[in-house]
């Protein structure tokens, strides 16, 4: 049977020291769509993405990506990850960075040139990345994730610090990729980017507080823009969870655990 979900997360627990980053996250991300991961900084977006690409140590739970266990060897050709900030070599040229990624993935010859055009760095191809502007080096980092033919592309805040024109161009590129059947997971804290996604996951304090679409988000909250909708949801979530004392929380956890077993 063909598994239709790109990512399936079941009761994911992640701890960092004594802090529980995730305490039982369940999640399904469909294939071939752009899923936006939104939420205030520190809410666990990056940890969730790291869990999906398999570089996050997880305490328990399962992450299934494209039908395989997350982070498994078979996935390393099929999943691409663009880290937050430009994880590129500043002392190499744009072309050298992309060529290194291409040789690791055994990508076809023309891939480097295709990606250079896709991220709009034709004129800077021979320049050292450290001599580029912040937005340009972000695009190099994005380009590294587009080398080869990944089926799932996970991008952590790829448009941060870019001007509106460039942001719009990149979202067009994400849309083209999704139309080609690539599953895109893109995090952002710019709420107006929410409208560009097919699905939205809103996170707060290590929990998914909404799994919805842009249209029903607005409808449900009775607001007209994503930012207001998001604030409304956060407010609602806060008032839901605020009266919960530590003891209540423990008892609820115990109940959930029993229910889970």
């Amino acid at each position, binding site marked *: 049977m063909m598994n239709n979900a790109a990512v399936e997360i079941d009761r994911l627990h992640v701890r960092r020291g004594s802090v529980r980053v995730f305490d039982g996250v369940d999640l399904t991300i469909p294939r071939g769509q752009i899923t936006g991961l939104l939420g205030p900084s520190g809410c666990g977006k990056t940890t969730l993405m790291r869990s999906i690409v398999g570089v996050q140590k997880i305490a328990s739970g399962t992450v299934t990506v494209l039908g395989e266990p997350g982070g498994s060897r078979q996935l390393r050709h099929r999943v691409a*990850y663009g880290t937050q900030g430009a994880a590129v070599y500043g002392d190499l040229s744009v072309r050298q960075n992309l060529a290194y990624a291409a040789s690791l993935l055994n990508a076809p010859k023309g891939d480097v040139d295709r990606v250079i055009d896709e991220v709009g760095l034709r004129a800077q191809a021979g320049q050292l990345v450290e001599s580029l502007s912040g937005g340009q080096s972000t695009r190099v980092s994005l380009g590294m994730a587009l080398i080869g033919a990944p089926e799932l592309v996970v991008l952590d805040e790829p448009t941060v610090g870019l001007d509106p024109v460039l942001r719009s161009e990149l979202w067009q590129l994400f849309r083209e990729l999704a139309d080609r059947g690539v599953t895109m997971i893109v995090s952002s804290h710019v709420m107006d980017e929410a409208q560009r996604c097919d699905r939205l996951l809103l996170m707060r304090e290590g929990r998914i507080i909404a799994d919805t679409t842009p249209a029903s988000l607005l409808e449900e909250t009775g607001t007209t823009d994503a930012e207001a909708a998001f604030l409304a949801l956060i407010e609602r979530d806060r008032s839901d969870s605020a009266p919960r004392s530590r003891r209540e929380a423990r008892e609820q956890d115990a109940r959930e655990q029993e229910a889970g077993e």
Partner: protein
Amino acid sequence: MSIRRTFATAGRVLAQLRHDPRSIALMLIAPSLLVGLFAWLFSDKEGVFDQFGGAILALFPFIVMFLITSITTLRERRSGTLERLMTTPLGKPDFILGYALAFGLMALLQAVITVTFAVWVCGLDVDGPLWQLGLVAVVDALLGTALGLLASAFAQTEFQAVQFMPLLVFPQIILGGLFMPRDQMPDVLHAISDWLPLSYAIDAIGAVAAGDEGWDVYGPLLIVLAFAVGALLLASLTLRRRTR
């Protein structure tokens, strides 16, 4: 393990280095300058440079490569590029060997230049063949690279990485037999020095300088190589695909 990815990584590291001519110059010329300083210091004392010059040849490639490797790999760990590489098909041994290969090549160049300078300019007198002196220098540099890779796993900042140098390197220099023949050391220190790779590097250099042949040269050299391989293995174990 993939030869193609190992070479791609080595090529990438060398390409990075090529954009940094100042580091290349420091790597290739600094050991010669220090050997020259040493020769000048003892220019009036007959035979002293011949006695210590060889050992200096063993030390500098080791120290320089230790520092360069630990800092570059630490930079890779901290900049996010290592995390990104760990999501690609690149194997951990490919990564470590790629670095060892690239810096090993630099070590070879460094050894050729430093040995040439020590012998032709400073007049270092060795009884054994010169290529053996170069070989010991290369193996020492490899050891430095391997230990540097390992040390970078335990450093969180560049500042810490540099502090590892005195901690890991100085005791080896002091106990290596350069200041006092190892068999004259207090028993405990002698026993410790038997477990330090640099002691064998200095033994090997001494054997070449004295014109010894066969196992007197290759025995200690193999021990140094074994330490280097061991450190590379450990370093590749410290790489983790999943981190906190």
